[in-house]
């Protein structure tokens, strides 16, 4: 089988994954897109392993590793999403913006107080 087909498929999967990660708002769909990207990578590993006829089958070994890691990751990620949803009744990513900078800079005397606290 020519190398082109699986590589094309892998890049297609990876691109769809990137699109999903960047464009989707739902956290679960983002996680699924991450899975898509990982599987694109897996496909690449297997395809090149076969193409290069690796004696040690390292590509397939890495794929197994990746499947395990992905399973663990999705478990952890789903748990986080579940907790976020329970707390906020939403899992929309663009609403989870607690770590953004305030729009107004902090007042100057506040800065001076902080500096004094640091100095002392």
């Amino acid at each position, binding site marked *: 089988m020519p190398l082109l087909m699986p590589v094309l498929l892998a890049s297609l999967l990876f691109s769809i994954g990137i699109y999903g990660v960047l464009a989707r708002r739902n956290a679960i769909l983002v996680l699924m897109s991450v899975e898509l990207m990982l599987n694109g990578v897996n496909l690449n590993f297997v395809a090149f392993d076969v193409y290069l006829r690796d004696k040690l089958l390292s590509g397939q070994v890495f794929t197994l590793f990746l499947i395990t890691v992905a399973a663990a990751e999705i478990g952890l990620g789903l748990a986080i999403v579940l907790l976020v949803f329970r707390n906020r009744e939403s899992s929309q*990513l663009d609403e989870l*913006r607690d770590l953004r900078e305030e729009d107004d800079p902090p007042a100057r005397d506040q800065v001076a107080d902080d500096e004094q606290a640091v100095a002392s």
Partner: protein
Amino acid sequence: MTLVFVTVLAPFVAAVAGLFLGGRWPRTQVPIAVAGAVVSLGGAVVLAVRVAVDAPLQDVAQVTTVHTGAFDIDVALRLDGLAGIVSVAVAVVALAVQVYSSDYLKGDPRYSSYAAFVSLFTAAMMLVVFADDLFVLLVGWEVMGVCSYFLIGHHWEQADAQRSAVKAFVVTRLGDVGFLFGIFTLSVAAGTSRITTILGTSGDGLSQHTATVATLLLLCGVVGKSAQFPLHTWLPDAMAGPTPISALIHAATMVAAGIYLVARLYPVFLAAPTTLAVMAVIACITMLGAALAALAQDDIKRVLAYSTVSQLAYMLAALAVGSATAATYHLLTHAAFKALLFLAAGSVIHVVGTNLMPDMGGLRKAMPVTFATMTVGLAALAGLPPFSGFFSKEAVLGAAEESARHDGPVASWAAWLVLVVGLVTVAVTAAYVTRLWLMTFFGTARTAVAVHESPPAMRWPLIALAIPAVGLGVVGNRSLLPTWLGLPAPTLHVGLVTSGLSVLLAAAGFAAVVVAWRLVPASDPMRLASLRPVLEHAFYVDDLYDRLFVRPVRAATRAVRWTDDEVVVATVAGSGLGATRLAVLLRRTQQGNVQTYLTGLLAGVVILAVGVVTLT
């Protein structure tokens, strides 16, 4: 030679001990201070006797050598006639002042540091006197300057004392810059900074140009330290210090250090006729100008200060016309009678409570000891025979006459100038001396306080100093002094013409003031209405300096301060403010959406990848 070290170190030890022990046990302050001066005096006297017995004697001791790379500095002391005799004068005055101060400053909270500084000053002066290396001499020279600064500023809570201390420090330092470079020039030219070696090679080792440059630079320091025109302005202001300090530092010893230095390095100065002529001109301007200024002062200490400036000019004039012996002689007699005058004036001030002569008057009966001793001092200052001042001033004028008529080391016009101005100054000196005498001790009492004689610790130093003020004349006039000093100079003599003229002129000055005083006894005998303000402000030299130097410097400091506030500080604050403003832009990107961050990350990766591919 160990005795030389003892003489130098005893006051130093007393200073350190006084500072550490005196603060804890106040009772030890006076004994420590006096003991240091006594040991030093004892050492100096023994040394002087040894020098007198073995004259001419030269003894050098080296402690250690400091390698500097260019040339080596030997820490060495030297004993010879000049050093021996001047050290006695220093030690006598120092002891008198320590004893006197114990009463004058009784109960002063800062007495312990005061006594320590006086001791330290004495040690530094001894170091200058005995130094055999120009750099060792410089150390003593600068320590004296610092002590002078601290002692003038003893009453530092008074604004004028502070100002005078700073002024004295800055003005003398101005001269010391030249002095330092003079030492460099001389040391490099001679290949060593050892005084003994320099004196040995001065005749042939130095070219006339080198000698002229070196001595002119050294003269800067001398002019600053000895308060000669144009750096004389600090001395009258230095009278803000306690009176014993004026006696010790600003009359008898420190200001004489400049003269001593010239006498010490005299062969080098003799090799530079230009310097001698400059010295003669400076001395003449200072001599007459200061004497005229003394004529119009109301503050008794300022009169004495200006007279000190004038008398130091006599010594400088003597050096200029080629007689180091006459200069040293006048230095010694002046040390005695001027210290006496200052201590007597201090005694008057102590009792009356003011420095101003218009507030004194009629003290003759109430203070007989002070009156008698001060009269002796004033007579010596005025140069009346047979007091010491007459003989020493005569030696100076005689040397000038000799140099003017025959070939001296200096051009004959300079010698004539010294002679004429010296004689005129004798008359002016007699006039201001008489004015001081009459206004303080005669006429009606203008003071409100009950006048009494001062305490014994202040009285005895007066009597002790009155003895040399009278006796030094008769002793020194013999040919003893020149051989003692071992200086290449003509013998001292009392010329008939000069002595007759000077006595006549002194009498004229005396008579003029007495006549003016007899007319209106209550008022100031100095009544030249139009001239008076000019003289009182000492020819406005201070105001001139104020215009020329002080105000421009003040303006410059304001400019510097403005630059600091408006440019430097503004730049620093501006950089902080600018960073804050720029940070506002950066904040915009931190809006909390993870996906935006990731997009940025991806874009960055793509740009890097494309860049790597296209550029390699």
